[in-house]
């Protein structure tokens, strides 16, 4: 598509949403690299210390799931509250931001799940060599009892829900201000809750609220539906939002 | 710099004409570009361009492509002739009208003019 300007520079061929997705992914990737590096060091250190006194009976990596749900969640909030203004003020559309944000968020969520699952498989191998139990916290169950793929899929759904919730929390604060944002929190956090409740491939996969076997019927398709609904809600909330003045 | 009520481009054109008449700008001299005018006097380059266009139309300036604006040969004479014409029709006529109103006769005027320093003494 050519423009009517007669400047010497060629027209941008990369669509706006792709540029935005790339920029946001850059932000997430940088922070995730640090987070995983730190997590690995911590897990190895804790296991080394604990194993001196007792036989290890639980996965160390599984403990980090909390961090990799809530830390990226908080970055996603920041992405919406500050990058949205910069994006539109720099002349790009809200629509391209939404698309870029959702793609970057889902990519990060899935990426974290892939890393976590890979680490769990590696951890299980190490535990087997050392004769430790790769327990999930439930008596008698191991973390990857239902298969690594299933577990990984569940994590991917959960972490993605966390990212989308972060985006939603961000736009609620952006639109409604401090008090309104807090009041809207339960709604904005519902994707995480719902996904953990009805969207898991296994009944007692790790969720943010513990490993208790679900009494609700659970199916990954429902999880996908929850994610789709969250993305749709984000789209509706951002597509015509007035852009605020930059803070500070 | 712009203390007249006319549009700025008119004032710029006038000041360039004045510089040519006084000899500050000689025939063949290059005039400042529109950009230089704009940045020196903080005016819109389009305004300067308008003034130049008017002077080009009059035959006072000419454009040399890629180089700039120059005072045309004969510009001073051209302006002088026009000014001389205007002197009689625009400046002298009202003075004569007022003289008539005040009852000053032509003879009074001639006598007054004779008393003025002669052409040689005048600048």
């Amino acid at each position, binding site marked *: 598509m050519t*423009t009517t300007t007669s400047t010497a*520079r060629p027209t941008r061929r990369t669509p706006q949403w792709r540029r935005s997705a790339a920029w946001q992914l850059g932000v997430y990737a940088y922070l995730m690299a640090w987070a995983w590096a730190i997590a690995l060091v911590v897990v190895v250190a804790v296991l080394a210390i604990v194993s001196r006194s007792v036989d290890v009976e639980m996965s160390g990596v599984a403990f980090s799931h909390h961090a990799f749900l809530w830390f990226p969640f908080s970055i996603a909030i920041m992405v919406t509250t500050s990058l949205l203004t910069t994006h*539109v003020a*720099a002349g790009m559309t809200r629509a391209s931001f939404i698309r870029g944000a959702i793609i970057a968020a889902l990519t990060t969520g899935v990426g974290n799940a892939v890393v976590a699952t890979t680490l769990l498989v590696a951890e299980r191998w190490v535990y087997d060599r050392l004769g430790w139990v790769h327990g999930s916290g439930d008596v008698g169950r191991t973390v990857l009892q239902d298969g690594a793929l299933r577990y990984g899929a569940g994590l991917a759904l959960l972490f993605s829900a966390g990212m989308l919730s972060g985006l939603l929390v961000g736009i609620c604060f952006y639109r409604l201000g401090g008090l309104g944002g807090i009041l809207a929190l339960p709604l904005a956090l519902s994707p995480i809750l719902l996904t953990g409740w009805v969207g898991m491939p296994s009944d007692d996969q790790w969720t943010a609220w513990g490993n208790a076997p679900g009494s609700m019927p659970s199916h990954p398709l429902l999880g996908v539906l929850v994610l789709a609904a969250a993305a749709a809600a984000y789209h509706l909330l951002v597509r015509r939002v007035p852009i605020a003045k930059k803070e500070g | 710099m712009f203390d007249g009520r006319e549009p700025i481009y008119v004032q710029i054109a006038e000041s360039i004409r004045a510089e040519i008449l006084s000899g500050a700008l000689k025939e063949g001299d290059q005039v400042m570009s529109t950009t230089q005018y704009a940045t020196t006097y903080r005016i*819109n380059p*389009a305004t300067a361009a308008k003034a130049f266009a008017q002077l080009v139309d009059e035959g006072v300036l000419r454009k040399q492509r890629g180089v700039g604006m120059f005072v045309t040969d004969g510009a001073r004479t051209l302006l002088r002739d026009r000014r001389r014409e205007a002197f009689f029709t625009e400046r002298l006529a009202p003075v004569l009208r007022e003289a008539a109103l005040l009852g000053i006769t032509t003879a009074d005027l001639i006598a007054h003019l004779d008393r003025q320093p002669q052409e040689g003494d005048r600048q």
Partner: protein
Amino acid sequence: MTGYSVSTSGLGVSYGRTAALTDVTIDLAPDRIHGLLGRNGAGKSTLLSTLASLRAPSDGTVAVDGGDPFEDERRMEHTCLVRECGDVIGDEPLTVNLDWFALARPTFDRAFAEDLLDRFGLDPRKKPQALSRGQASAFGVVTGLAARSPLTMFDEVHLGMDAPARHTFYEALLADFAEHPRTIIISSHLINEIETMLETVTIIHQGRLLLSEEADNLRARGATLTGPAAAVDRLTAGQTVIGSRDLGPTRQATLFGDLDTAVLDRAADHGVTVGPVPLQDLFIHLTEHPTRTEAHA
């Protein structure tokens, strides 16, 4: 023609129940420098924000380059609004900010931006949050000029900038405008400083359009008469006198409106000199005693 045209029709913008703009209809031709004036809170920033698609109109329509710019990729990425608050990435160095703008805006000239950073004395390794207010404003100017957007708008960017910095801004703006024509809208309180650059003047007052016309036309409607008090009074009889000052026997009267040019031409005969009225004075008068004038193109 490379700049965008700007027009609004019956534009209204409300924040909740407060109307920031009501029934604003303007038509700004492309490739010209337009001035946007108004008292604090008049609605200038709201108008500029709406043109930049930072918000949608509540009423009426906006057209940039002949069409609605809201969420239109081409129009938005070729429109640059430099706001006083500065829309930069505060915790990344200036040079990373330039990367961002180069990524976002197809018309951005990186080399020109770096040259401007140098002219304003800005260190590209510093972060915006470490800059003084004047430096932050200067950086805003740098990004706005280097964007070379067909529609470029400066919203009170002079705030915090000292006189030499403002001088650099005006100089760079005019030189680049001559080289790369585009549509420029400047909103400023320092009317004296920018008056001679403006080709048109649009005044917003309390959310409504007061006037929008050629700067030359507006100037032609004003005159100051200075001379012996009695002579000045005689000449100004029957015309709209908006101000008057005495210094001993000399009076200076300011006229505004449809002037009797015949009277003004005769002024010299009575020992009265006629001069222009600074746009600032016209502005003060018009916004203290607003009467709706017909908008001229």
